[in-house]
């Protein structure tokens, strides 16, 4: 509120700046406000002025005396096409008194006022159109069963001047179904009651009343000055009626347009600074018209849907913002497959069909959810604040929302939250915990009863948010996983045994030692095998180059290595022999040792044979035949050693 007030006072340049920031406001009001007879272009700005005027005029109000205003002309157009009744009164107000007047009073009978959802006054001074603040007041010394609204004029109305005002008032639940129960085959008939004369605290010089009707008229109050032309019922014109003239008029007509009433709508708008706005809307929809009697017959509905079931509605259309994606439509028992989605760059249209056609008195619930790109709705505001700019109302066409709750879930760590709306709402705050939150996300809850499509205006939520807080949750995850690994490492490296002297603990220690030793032994044997390989390769070199000397040198080196390894092996073997736990492995290892020894001998023998043969310059075939038996033994030994090694490593 404060910000808006400031806006009004700041100079033109600043104004333009704000205009840019809030560009979406004026843009989409254009597309949404189909009802205004006023120039749309100025609409966005006007609404911002409105609040300023409220404050200005409330101060002036007390000084204004009951004046000598006269309504010189009042034309009323009552639109009865939908179940939301819209009355547009075109007024010409003339000041016949001596004093300047700055406010005009409107009057509504209490019976109508309790159904009033919204009232708005439009004023045009030639080029620009304004929305004038219209506030309920309780003036003194006036008839009491009438509710009053005061319009604050932009400039004082001088003597003899006139001003043109267009007052749009929207009523809900004013069409009473009659009869209250109908069968499937019948059409829905409703009754609308109004005052034939314009209810006004001022005398009305000239007035007329037009009802715009959707279809057949059953009956209407007969009066000399009445005519029914096609779908329009005209009363009047009447001249020179005193203030508070009253004469009831009743219209009984057919209205099969969907009487879709959302008993409750919870819109949850969740902002993620990662670039997404998620909207979830939970509806409880019912049919507010005449209730169905005698059950529902599918065969009649399918055979002649428009005749048998005319009063029901099957399809609801939701107009979502452009670039809406990830749309879903479901209820508490799962996805509802009957929906269609169209979209272009201007808007996205979602056509949903409830699980069953909704007849009078029937009810259903469902949830619509969609995601929107953040940059379309979130802007930077003055003072390092961010501002979310979203529409308030329900995106469904022509649906009356009895209880409308908007929850704006701001990211965790948002501060200094303020809300600006164009109409009074009940505000409260809440906290929501979601996705790894610690402190919870601040939630702004706005509540309003009787919301009509005309309430589909933008509202703003200002808050402060530091981008660093975005990283808190990923960091938390990283730290969590890191700690998990650290804990694992610590666990693996700590000795959690309670008693360090217990036999089982000592056994375990010894077992570990045995394992380490076995591993060591294995390594030694691997080295043995490597030395064998070396010997073999030296033989191969020999067959190629015939270099006997190097071959001999290789043998010597191998011999030395074998000895070294044997030295290394000895203490390990004695350790294993001393260990009680190694008893299961020991025989295998001993076997391994003996096998290896044998292999060594054979290898050496073979080596010498081959070298000898080469020295004697025998042919390849001869050599082969000589060492064939040795070779055979050697291979089998090698196999055995390898399999033994394998079996040891499996322990």
């Amino acid at each position, binding site marked *: 509120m404060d910000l808006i007030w400031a806006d009004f006072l700041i100079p033109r340049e600043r104004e333009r700046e704000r205009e840019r920031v809030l560009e979406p406001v004026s843009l989409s009001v254009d597309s949404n406000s189909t009802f205004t007879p006023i120039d749309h272009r100025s609409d966005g700005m006007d609404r911002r002025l409105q609040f300023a005027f409220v404050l200005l005029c409330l101060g002036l109000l007390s000084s204004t005396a009951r004046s000598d205003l006269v309504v010189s002309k009042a034309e009323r157009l009552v639109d009865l096409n939908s179940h939301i009744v819209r009355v547009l009164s075109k007024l010409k107000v003339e000041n016949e008194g001596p004093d300047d007047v700055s406010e005009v009073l409107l009057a509504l009978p209490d019976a109508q006022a309790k159904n009033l959802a919204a009232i708005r006054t439009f004023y045009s001074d030639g080029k620009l159109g304004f929305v004038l603040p219209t506030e309920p007041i309780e003036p003194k010394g006036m008839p009491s069963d009438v509710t009053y609204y005061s319009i604050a004029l932009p400039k004082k109305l001088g003597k003899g001047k006139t001003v043109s005002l267009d007052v749009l008032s929207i009523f809900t639940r004013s069409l009473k179904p009659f009869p209250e129960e109908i069968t499937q085959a019948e059409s829905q008939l409703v009754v609308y009651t109004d005052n034939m004369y314009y209810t006004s605290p001022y005398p009305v010089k000239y007035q007329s009343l037009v009802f715009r009707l959707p279809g057949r008229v059953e009956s209407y109050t007969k009066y000399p000055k009445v005519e029914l032309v096609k779908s329009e019922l005209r009363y009047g014109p009447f001249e020179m009626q005193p203030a508070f003239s009253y004469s009831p008029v009743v219209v009984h007509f057919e209205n099969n347009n969907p009487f879709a009433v959302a008993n409750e709508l919870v819109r949850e708008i969740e902002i993620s600074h990662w670039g997404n706005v998620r909207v979830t809307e939970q509806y409880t929809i019912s049919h507010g018209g005449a209730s169905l009697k005698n*059950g529902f017959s599918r065969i009649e509905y399918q055979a002649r849907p428009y005749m048998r079931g005319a009063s029901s509605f099957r399809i609801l259309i939701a107009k979502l913002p452009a670039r809406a994606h990830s749309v879903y439509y479901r209820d508490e*028992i799962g996805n509802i497959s009957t929906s269609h989605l169209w979209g272009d760059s201007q808007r996205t249209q979602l056509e949903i069909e409830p699980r069953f056609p909704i007849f009078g008195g029937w009810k259903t619930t469902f949830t619509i959810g969609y995601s929107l790109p953040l940059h379309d709705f979130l802007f930077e505001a003055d003072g390092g604040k961010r501002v979310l700019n979203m529409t308030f109302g329900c995106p469904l066409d022509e649906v009356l929302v009895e209880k409308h709750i908007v929850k704006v879930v701001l990211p965790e760590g948002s501060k200094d939250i303020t809300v600006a709306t164009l109409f009074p709402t009940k505000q409260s705050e809440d906290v929501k915990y979601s996705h*790894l939150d610690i402190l919870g996300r601040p939630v702004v809850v706005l509540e309003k009863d009787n919301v009509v499509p005309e309430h589909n205006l933008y509202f703003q939520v200002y808050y402060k948010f530091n981008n660093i807080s975005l990283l808190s949750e990923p960091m938390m995850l990283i730290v969590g996983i890191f700690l998990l690994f650290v804990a694992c490492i610590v666990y693996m490296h700590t000795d959690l045994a309670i008693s360090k002297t217990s036999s089982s603990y000592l056994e375990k220690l010894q077992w570990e030692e045995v394992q380490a030793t076995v591993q060591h032994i294995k390594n030694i044997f691997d080295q043995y095998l*490597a030395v064998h390989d070396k010997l073999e390769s030296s033989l191969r070199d020999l067959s190629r180059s015939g270099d006997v000397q190097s071959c001999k040198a290789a043998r010597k080196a191998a011999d030395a290595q074998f000895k070294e390894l044997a030295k290394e092996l000895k203490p390990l073997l004695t350790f294993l022999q001393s260990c009680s736990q190694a008893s299961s492995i020991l025989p295998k290892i001993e076997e391994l040792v003996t096998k290896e020894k044998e292999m060594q001998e054979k290898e050496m023998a073979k080596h010498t044979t081959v070298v000898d043969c080469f020295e004697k310059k025998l042919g390849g075939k001869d050599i082969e035949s000589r060492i064939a038996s040795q070779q055979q033994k050697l291979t089998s030994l090698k196999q055995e050693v390898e399999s033994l090694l394998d079996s040891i490593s499996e322990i």
Partner: protein
Amino acid sequence: MATSKVEGSSSLRHAFGGVLSVFILLLIGVVAFSIRLFSVIKYESVIHEFDPYFNYRVTQFLSKNGIYDFWNWFDDRTWYPLGRVIGGTVYPGLTLTAGTMWKLANSLNIPLSVETVCVFTAPIFSAFAAWATYLLTKEVKGTGAGITAAAILAMVPSYISRSVAGSYDNEAVAIFALIFTFYLYIKTLNTGSLFYATLNSLAYFYMVCSWGGYTFIINLIPMHVLLCIVTGRYSSRLYIAYAPLVVLGTLLAALVPVVGFNAVMTSEHFGSFLVFIIIHVVALVYYIKGILTPRLFKVATTLVLTVGIAVCAVVVAILVALVASSPTKGWSGRSLSLLDPTYASKYIPIIASVSEHQPPTWPSYFMDINVLAFLVPAGIVACFLPLSDASSFAVLYLVTSVYFSGVMVRLMLVLAPAACIMSGIALSEAFGVLTRSMKFHITKYFECSHTEAPAKLGESTSTESSAPLENMTKSDTTEKPEVARKEKVARRKQKKEKELTENAHVKPVSAKKEKRPLVLPLEASIVSVFLLIVLGGLYVLHCVWAAAEAYSAPSIVLTSHSHDGLHVFDDFREAYAWLRHNTEVDDKVASWWDYGYQTTAMANRTVIVDNNTWNNTHIATVGTAMSSPEKAAWEIFNSLDVKYVLVVFGGLVGYPSDDINKFLWMVRIGGGVFPHIKEADYLKDGQYRVDAQATHTMLNCLMYKLSYYRFVETDGKGFDRVRRYEIGKKHFKLTHFEEVFTTHHWMVRIYKLKPQKNRIRGKSRKSKLGSKSTSSKSGGMTHKNPWN
């Protein structure tokens, strides 16, 4: 060729193998989870079928009201007017598991709905089950077989059918519990550790919590123990594996409310106690044998035997007398039908009426375990080479589960893990033999090539020429024994390198043959490996097909493909949503018991009977009402305070499992309690039909009328697309019921009971009634209302 490399590779091999098998197991878990997501992708994240809806509802209650309210929950939404004590009649394992998972997620502020948790419980637990299979098979036959078995189990269709995402049923967690209990039993048996024995009892406790199938465990393990004792394999390890399980397990089982004293009082558990006694006797005998001399022992044996036999005879006599005194001989109906497959169809139509309680057909074996059926015998052979305690258990498990699956198609689920374990063993052994012989031949081949060209670049040619072959095996066997194979590839490479260095000498084949008797010719082994891979590939294809097409439908929403695209039949939810929003909260809805769980869960309305078929009389009452003429049915329903009657009708769109097709069971179950309903009255020459030749009783019963009310107006002929003929009675009016809702495809029709008419003056009413009863000779009108 450097020594360091050889060393490094051998020490690295184990670390690498460990990491690789962990990685493969992880992948198997992912496969097990994701193959079950077809239902979510093709349809939606929704609870499936019938029983899962009940479990879902219980979980919702648990998450909303807490554990204590859950134990004390008396559900007045079902079995009206009797109600049902949910806390004491439900196996709480699944509910508690999902409830805990939900709570855990929410305590971390992860906003998951109960429904989401329930939908994904089954896939998560199938991953666990695959890992448990790995552990079990590893205990039986080693790591390679374990991994193969886990991979096979991860996608076995039989298990998929029960554990797709959304199939939130007891079996989803129970199969994991079953396998894990078996694993711990075998682990205890192999190690003799009391720690594992305790864990085993806890796993058994979890199994008891989860599923009535726990009796399978408590009978199979004693059987195995007995087998071990008889074959002379008694050891202290066996004692530790068994005795704590019986004592602790029974104590824990008795803690579960639904089991309670049944854990010691029904015959299903007696076998385990008997074996418990036997194992103690055997233990005692072994102990005495240890301290006595052989001669003394012989004397003692004869002494004890004579006394023992006498005592045993007395005990057995007492037991038999006790058991015989109970009407079902201490066995529950389902268990009895297990032992005697014809029992159910003879005595309990309510059990026989469930399709999953029917014996399976051969095609269903092929559908559910596919190629495993051929691999299982090979696995059994492999288990006998050599026979260990663990492998004998695997064989016993297989044999018993084959029997049970033959009795009841539902128990195919118990067979599936056994078949997977056996096939895993078979495949792994076969691959072991084949790759070993291939390796042998290949190394031999390269040695030959070296003799021919000794001084050539032997190494490079060898790697080149062996590369394609390796690639072939690598690419083709990816699914199966990956670790085993890779390990072997590594080993083979290493060995090859060594043997390449072994100079240019021909290795005598005979020496090898002596040591490795299982060497097959190269060509044969290549062909066999190829065939096995093809077999495995076929299995995988079949599994994916089964998961995607056969088992992923949630059955509450149906789809059909026609020339103009996909058509969705969402009639069930349409009807339930209508009931939920447009009837009074306390209205009672009567329908056949199949739809009871769904009605309470989705429509939130009180039902008369539901899928927990605990009260046969109540179900028979509904069956009687459905098979009675309108007026009698109205009276029955009215006496039950029913306001709406729901029937499922598939005649318009050709949905075959509708109420007309189930109707004969209603007649049978109703007739079983109220004898004035006779099955013969509804059959024409032994044939069930609703066309023009149908019997008068059939065409006038409530089910017929509610199903076909105004049906003729759809096409003018009344052609029933399920039965494929025109219906018998086309034009009729309802006098005591009124249609209030029919879904888009007519699959669910809801009728309201008309309020009682104002009393007409005595005479005219009497005459009316008289003329009516004479004109319509619907027999048995004298005791039409079972509640009179």
